Each structure stands twice: as C-alpha cells, then as structure tokens.
C-alpha cells in the first residue's frame, strides 16, 4: 500500500477537484462565520465594556463561559432551531452551508465578545478622561476605542478563526458531511480516516495546519508592523 503522505502530495500537486471543493467550502463557511461574529461581537463587546447596567457581571461571566462551549453542543442548539419542528424549521436550512455558518458563528461570537470587552475595558480606563475632555461620550468612544485597539483585537478574531476551522462537531451535526455539499476539511478527515482512506485525510490535515500556520504568521507580522509603525 502506498504511503498516505505520497497520496497526499499527489492529490495536492494535481489540485484534485474534490479536495479543492472541500477546502473552498471550509474557507467559505469559516470566514463568513468570522465576519458575522465580528460584525456582531466587536460592537457588542465594546458596549459591554462601557455600559453599566444591573446584571452586567452575569452577562460577562456568561460570555466567558461560552468561550468553552463544546462544538457539539453549539451544533445541537442550531440543529434544534433549524430542524423541521424547530422555530426556524420553515427555512429548511438544515444540512446546508448556511446552517454550518450559523453554528460556527455561535462558537466564535463568545470569543470575539469577551476579548473585545477586555481590550476595550483596559483602553477605556486609560483614555476615559482624555476622550471625555475632547468632547466624546461613551457611545462615540466605542469606534475610537475599537480602532485604537485594532492590533490587540486581531488576536481575538484570529482565535475565533482558529476555533472554527478546527472544530468537527458543530458542522458535522448541522451540515451532515454530505459530499460535494457540506463536507469540510475536518469532517472529511474524520470520515476518510474511518474509511481507511488515509491519503486524503493526511492531505487535508497538512493543508489545515499550513492554513492556520500562515494565518497566524500573517497576523503576527501585521501586529509587529503595526506596533513599530503606530506605537
């Protein structure tokens, strides 16, 4: 039997269409989920940092705890919401990429919210007097603080990407691992390993690692550059 590594490199070298399709879908799902989580999570985290309301501590603890939400539970929640008898059942989204995006957004959102809150809270302590003096109020301070914390926030966004691209449970439950439709890198690795089809599994594993590594390298370089350039 051929070594799985040889098979893997052959697949990658000739840009196997099934392989490319799986990679494309994985990136589309995860990047969309990251984008949605940022659009919701950055302002929400900043608001949570600046707002004072009863029960604020409880909300902060909840989001911190949700950072450890097991992916299968996130998948289960979205499954129940989207299943035929669920509240969103009429949209028939179960076992589609849209359902996978929803599940991964649920996984990433607590990370983005919690890290944003912590970054913005620290910045606000430092900037408060100066911003109020210049004429800002708390609401107007939100975009200013997000922008000034952009380098630190990038780390949070990246952590979210890492979590979503690595998880299997959520996309498997709501996506169903349907070939050519909802099969991602992680679900394909699970399936192909079980089948003994190690070549494809190894190829996907290598690509997943390379992707994560290069994204982190890019983010680190961007951070270093920003620190030296922006102070």
């Amino acid at each position: 039997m051929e070594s799985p590594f040889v098979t893997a490199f052959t697949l990658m070298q000739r840009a196997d269409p099934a392989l490319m399709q799986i990679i494309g879908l994985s990136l589309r799902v995860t990047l969309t989920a990251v984008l949605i989580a940022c659009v919701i999570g950055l302002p929400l985290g900043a608001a949570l940092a600046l707002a004072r309301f009863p029960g604020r501590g409880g909300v902060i603890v909840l989001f911190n705890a949700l950072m450890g939400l097991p992916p299968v539970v996130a998948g289960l929640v979205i499954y129940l919401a989207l299943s035929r008898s669920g509240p969103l059942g009429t949209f028939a989204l179960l076992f589609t990429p849209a359902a996978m995006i929803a599940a991964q957004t649920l996984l990433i959102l607590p990370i983005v919210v919690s890290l944003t809150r912590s970054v913005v809270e620290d910045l606000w302590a430092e900037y408060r007097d100066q911003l109020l003096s210049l004429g800002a109020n708390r609401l107007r301070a939100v975009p200013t603080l997000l922008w000034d914390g952009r380098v630190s926030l990038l780390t949070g966004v990246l952590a979210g990407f890492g979590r979503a691209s690595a998880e299997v449970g959520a996309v498997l439950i709501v996506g169903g691992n349907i070939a050519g439709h909802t099969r991602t890198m992680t679900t394909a690795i699970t399936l192909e390993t079980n089948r003994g089809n190690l070549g494809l599994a190894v190829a996907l594993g290598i690509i997943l690692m390379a992707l994560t590594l290069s994204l982190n390298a890019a983010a680190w370089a961007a951070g270093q550059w920003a620190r030296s350039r922006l102070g």
Partner: protein
Amino acid sequence: MTAAILPLTLDRAGYAVGGKPLLSDVTLTVPAGRRLIVLGANGAGKSLLLRLCHGLIEPTSGRRRWAQGEARPGAQAMVFQRPILLRRTVAANLAYPLALRGLPRAGRADTVARTLDRFGLAALADRPARLLSGGEQQRLALARAWVTGPQVLFLDEPCSALDPSATRIIEEMIARFSAEGITIVMTTHDLGQARRLAQDVAFLHRGRLIEHQAADGFFAGPQTPEARAFLAGDLIW
C-alpha cells in the same frame, strides 16, 4: 464667537470617594482672561480640582456654575500630564476633536492644516502620533486642545515629564494662548514655572482651598503658614 462661558464658579464644592473627602468646601471664581496657577503638595487635590472644574467628575457636594448655568460648555479643553494620543497620524489626532464637534470633513482639513502650520507640526503631519518624542507629543496635545477654540484651557502639570527646552516651548505656547485671550488654569510642581506664568495663585492644602490671591502678593508674602512652609520648603530643598 459663542457666548462667554466664564466666569466659572465653584460654590462650596466638595468631592468625596467612599465617604472620604478629597476636596472640601472649595469656593472659587475663575474670571475670564487670567492665568491661574494651582499650587499645593502632592495629594492636596490639584488634579482633582482641575478635573472637577473641567467636568470630568461631578462635585459630590456644593455646586459648579458656568456663566450660562450648570450645563457643561464645549468651549473648554484640558491638557494632561501624560497626553493620550490616538494611534493615528498627527493630523488625524488634530482632526478628531473637530469630528466630535460635527465639523464637516472639508472644513476639518482646512483647520487641521492651519493648526499644523501654526504650531510647527506640518513636517510631522503624517507621522504616527505615538512615535513622537515627549516634547512633540505634548506640543501636539496643546495644539489639539487649541484647535476647537476653547475659552478656558486646563493644564495638569503639562511639563512635569519634559526636559528644560521642551518645557520652555510649552510655556511659550501657554503664554501665547493667554495673549489671545484664552483663560489658563494650570497646576505645576515647578515653582519657577509658577512664578513665570502665574497672574493668580490658588493654594490647596489637604483638599481645601486655603489661599487665592494675585501672584505677586502670594509669592511676596503668603497669608497662611501652610503656604509659607510650602514656598520655604522649596527654597531649602
């Protein structure tokens, strides 16, 4: 020109945190057009008094009134000991308070360009503000305070982290602001600087305002033993 916001009056104003009074019974009038220097030992409440006047904190007892009433007027600015510059360029830092005041983008660019020229910052316009030297940062902070056209400028030990030449530049800027009619309220630890800049002196001791008079009179002969000791301490030191 908007309506005059001065005089600013504190009427038996106090500020307490957790029942511990940090400022007590401060009654003070800041008239327009003067340079008032606030003196006092560490922890006497100088910075707190400035923040209270500027409206960053609210009195927990007594009242603060501007010429037009108790609402906080916009035509005032404050420069801090360690200025917080935004992680943007020098020009963008100057544009920021103008944007907060709703100035349209085109007008902002004009005002920023004129301000950069006036304060000799034009060559630094595109530099990231956080990478300027300490003296340049404070110069930018003063320019940013000036750009919105304040009637009163509060300065909290603006030179305490600067070397003598940077200090001189800042003092010259303050003198020019004053010559333009901007009222100055400033704290300092440097008695030489206080002598150079003060027209009036307010002396704080343990959260109370115990002396407030013209600078000449204060430096020639303080009325309270605390102020005498404060000035003498500086000479002996």
